[in-house]
């Protein structure tokens, strides 16, 4: 679902450290470029992450998928366009020291920062705001899953992520005030 970015094509330049004729190099460039584009097409053809049983959930799933996609593109403008001007991320381990918008954008552009998969999303809508809560699981590797609560706000400019609350989703389920485990039947939506 979250394939890696296609490999970069490092083309050679005619007249520099080249031992072959430029015409041959041009063909090689087209071939290599084609392969790179095929790889890109394969990535793009991956199914979208956005499928949810509720309409609001589907919209929020799409927004979360777009956010990860923007981070994978490593484009600060694209990523920033999805964030509220006052966006911040609050991590459970340091609730009084939020991560600022610019720092978050820079960090999310790092390699692998967006290699996560959204699972178990629940959606609630409150007028012009909506809250998505979900688990982020690593697409590759052994990183521990995270529980995320995102608050989105709608304006004339579209949906913007206002605040993200994150906590590790590990450890036993015990000691949570008010927690009651209710048996659920196996069902399909």
């Amino acid at each position, binding site marked *: 679902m979250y394939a890696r970015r296609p490999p970069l094509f490092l083309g050679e330049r005619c007249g520099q450290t080249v031992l072959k004729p430029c015409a041959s190099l041009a063909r090689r460039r087209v071939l290599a470029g084609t392969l790179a584009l095929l790889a890109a097409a394969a990535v793009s053809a991956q199914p979208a992450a956005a499928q949810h049983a509720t309409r609001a959930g589907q919209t929020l799933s799409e927004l979360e998928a777009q956010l990860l996609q923007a981070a994978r593109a490593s484009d600060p403008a694209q990523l920033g366009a999805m964030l509220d001007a006052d966006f911040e991320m609050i991590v459970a381990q340091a609730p009084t020291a939020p991560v600022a918008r610019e720092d978050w954008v820079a960090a999310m552009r790092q390699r692998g920062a967006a290699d996560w998969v959204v699972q178990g999303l629940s959606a609630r809508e409150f007028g012009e705001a909506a809250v998505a809560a979900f688990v982020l699981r690593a697409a590759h590797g052994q990183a521990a899953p995270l529980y995320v609560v995102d608050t989105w706000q*709608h304006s004339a400019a579209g949906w913007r992520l206002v605040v993200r609350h994150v906590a590790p989703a590990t450890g036993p389920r015990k000691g949570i005030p008010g927690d009651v485990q209710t*048996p659920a039947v196996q069902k399909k939506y």
Partner: protein
Amino acid sequence: MKTLFGISLLALGVAVTGTARADQHDENGVDKGKIHHRLNDGAPELNPQAPATVGHALTAGSTATASRAITNHGGPVMGTPDVHLIWYGNWNQANGSDTLAGQQIVQAFMGSISGSPWMKINTATAVTGKGYTGSGGSSVSGNVATVHNANFGYLNGSKSLTDANIATVVSNYVATQGGATTNAIYFVLTSSDVTASSGFCTQYCGWHTQGTVGSVANVKYSFVGNANRCLASCAPQTNSPNGNAGVDGMVSVLAHELVETLSDPQLNAWYDNQGAENGDKCAWTFGGAQKVAANGSFYNVTLGTRNYAIQRNLAANSKCYVDAVTGQQ
């Protein structure tokens, strides 16, 4: 080398075309390049002074073959089931949704769905090519045998139902019917003062399952909540063809659960490699031939004298349709 060069250019064209398609829409035809501007962006924005066609149509959806094919995993399907509508809660309220007229919207739908071009999506037609078949020679007929109705009231006065409560509602109901049968689907339809505590409105709008009820195994039952509790989540539009957005929303979810129960009654038949059933793969898409009702709402299916906004359904050929006779997608 020339041949390779030519193939490369051809592949380049294919790649670019494929990239463009894949970038623009996901499997449900949702434009991935745009941010949806409202959670209820399918709702018409009406101007009473303007022609009825002003407003945003519901999401049409893609006409392409779904990216992950739906396949049979070895289980049976249902042929021509009986349907039981179990009305839970108070369906005689003055809120404009949980009313006798609201019940009639659902009853009229279920009473006329049998053999309709929408139900035939589940069967082999000239358009679909093949239908849903399962183990034991079973096949979905596209028909419903009989439709039963019963008002249940509340289970111990409860307005918040667990999954187990819903099973109990079905169990108590079938006890009044001489027991459950395996060729029936029992739908628990709740009034809008009732929720289901396992995630109604936030995780789902309805669900289906099967289990042992009384002493009968493989009893198929389903929950469908009144979308009036959460129109942004469980209704396609806030203004609806029958003037009851909550119940009109329920009808689409009911249709979704009906076809999923037919093609995957024991949760071991038709679904894709991620578990999505036929209804899931076309959820919240309504096709490209929507019409505008007198009240400005959108509809895509007419059954008898009523219009409905019913989500498309996936045929066994992995394409979403509104009508398996005309091929309208």
